[in-house]
């Protein structure tokens, strides 16, 4: 977030120092934006930073909830008609199904004695749509449990009545392994029938996890060249793993 803040502050200072100039010239240049318009533009930019901030809080809080099995508050992070798709399990539609998925698959609310299920939320790249009501983020979870896991996220968020919520959580797995290490074992991707409950819709994409690979499309253009991500045939590949794969 700090780069964002720095950019924002530079923008704020630039804009603030710029206000007096055009304002002075306003009498002779009717095309210059009015002071009020410049202030409104500044407010929009500040609001976007607050939006990105809040989306980060929501996603990080999602992680803190998973850690401790707080499924009910977790489901309340989602909009009414949100979708959830984790690993290869297929798509669950609606906040109630999000809760059913979590409680059926992982048990009632509250982490159980002797369990650790940390889903640490890192490396978020957040973007807000020009309408200020929709957001997208790519991020990763680093899972530290009995073994290791690496889901990625390409999530959508929606601002309803001034409140940011998750509208689409899409978390394809990069890799799951036993504790002994990713050089020694690899757990296959989940499937719609891996565990209960069944999904509402089939997986949006079928892919294999490490040692195979799949690049979930980037929601954003290249930050330097500006080129949008083009989905290519080489974005997924299959690779057998020499040691026997271990069951999940």
């Amino acid at each position, binding site marked *: 977030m700090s780069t964002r803040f720095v950019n924002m502050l530079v923008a704020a200072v630039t804009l603030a120092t710029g206000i007096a100039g055009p304002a002075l010239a306003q009498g002779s240049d009717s095309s210059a934006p009015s*002071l009020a318009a410049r202030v409104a533009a500044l407010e929009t930019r500040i609001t976007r930073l607050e939006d990105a901030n809040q989306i980060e809080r929501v996603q990080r809080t999602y992680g803190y909830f998973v850690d401790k099995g707080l499924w009910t508050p977790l489901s309340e992070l989602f909009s009414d008609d949100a979708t959830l798709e984790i690993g290869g399990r297929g798509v669950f539609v609606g906040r109630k199904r999000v809760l059913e998925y979590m409680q059926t698959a992982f048990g009632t609310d509250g982490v159980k004695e002797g369990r650790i299920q940390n889903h640490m939320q890192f490396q978020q790249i957040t973007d807000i749509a020009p309408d200020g009501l929709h957001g997208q983020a790519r991020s990763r979870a680093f899972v530290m449990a009995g073994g290791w896991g690496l889901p990625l996220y390409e999530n959508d968020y929606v601002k309803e009545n001034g409140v940011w919520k998750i509208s689409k959580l899409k978390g394809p797995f990069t890799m799951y392994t036993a504790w002994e290490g990713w050089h020694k074992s690899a757990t296959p991707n989940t499937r719609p029938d891996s565990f209960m409950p069944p999904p509402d819709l089939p997986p949006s994409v079928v892919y294999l996890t490490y040692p195979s690979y799949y690049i979930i499309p980037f929601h954003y253009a290249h930050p330097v060249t500006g080129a949008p991500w083009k989905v290519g045939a080489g974005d997924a590949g299959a690779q057998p793993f020499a040691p026997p794969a271990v069951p999940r």
Partner: protein
Amino acid sequence: MSRKLVMLTLLAALALPLGASAQGLSDVEAKVGELRKRVALLKDQEAIENLQAAYGFYFDKMLWGEVSDLFTARGSFEYGQRGVYIGKERIRKALLLFGAEGPEAGKLNNHMQLQPVIHVAEDGRSAKARWRGMVQLARPHASGQWGEGVYENEYVKEGGVWKIARLHFYVTAFVDYDLGFTKSANPAEGPSALFPPDQPPTEIYRSFPGVYIPPFHYPHPVTGKPITFPQPADTVLGRKLP
């Protein structure tokens, strides 16, 4: 600096006729005042993020003087079940329980500061934050541990400078690197007999395989209600679900 600039700009703007009505100008003035406040809160949040990151970098290398100087004069430090140390000098001494002052060859003491959820108070004078702590401890060929936990910290701004007022690290787990959580669990350290804390632990819990949910300082980000939950059962402490 931006505050000053905005103020000067505002004064300059107010001194000009602009062809706008007095009402229009006072609306703009009010709006600029509001925006100044919002920018200040974002800057405060950034300062706190940097402050806690600095804590981690100093802690990694056992720079206890630098660590304790991040706290207010009456700041408090609580790590796992070690109890609470109050005041800069007490904190500096307590940190010696984690090793001698300064970096040491053959010792890894990484305390990564990650996943912050920061809330600055509306008045911009205090703040609270939840953080993720990942810990890597090692002695070559002797021991290696992964640790993990959650911070719930408080900060205050004194003389324009953000400081740690209360640091509380809730240890989730420490585990042997080679064995992992399925085969190993190292209990959290209790209060030191050599250098006892000023107060006992504020909350009694067992780290892994025990489970404990550190309370959230903030309301649910969507519902706005307090985040409430029963603490999970613990057979050793005899804690039962209600």
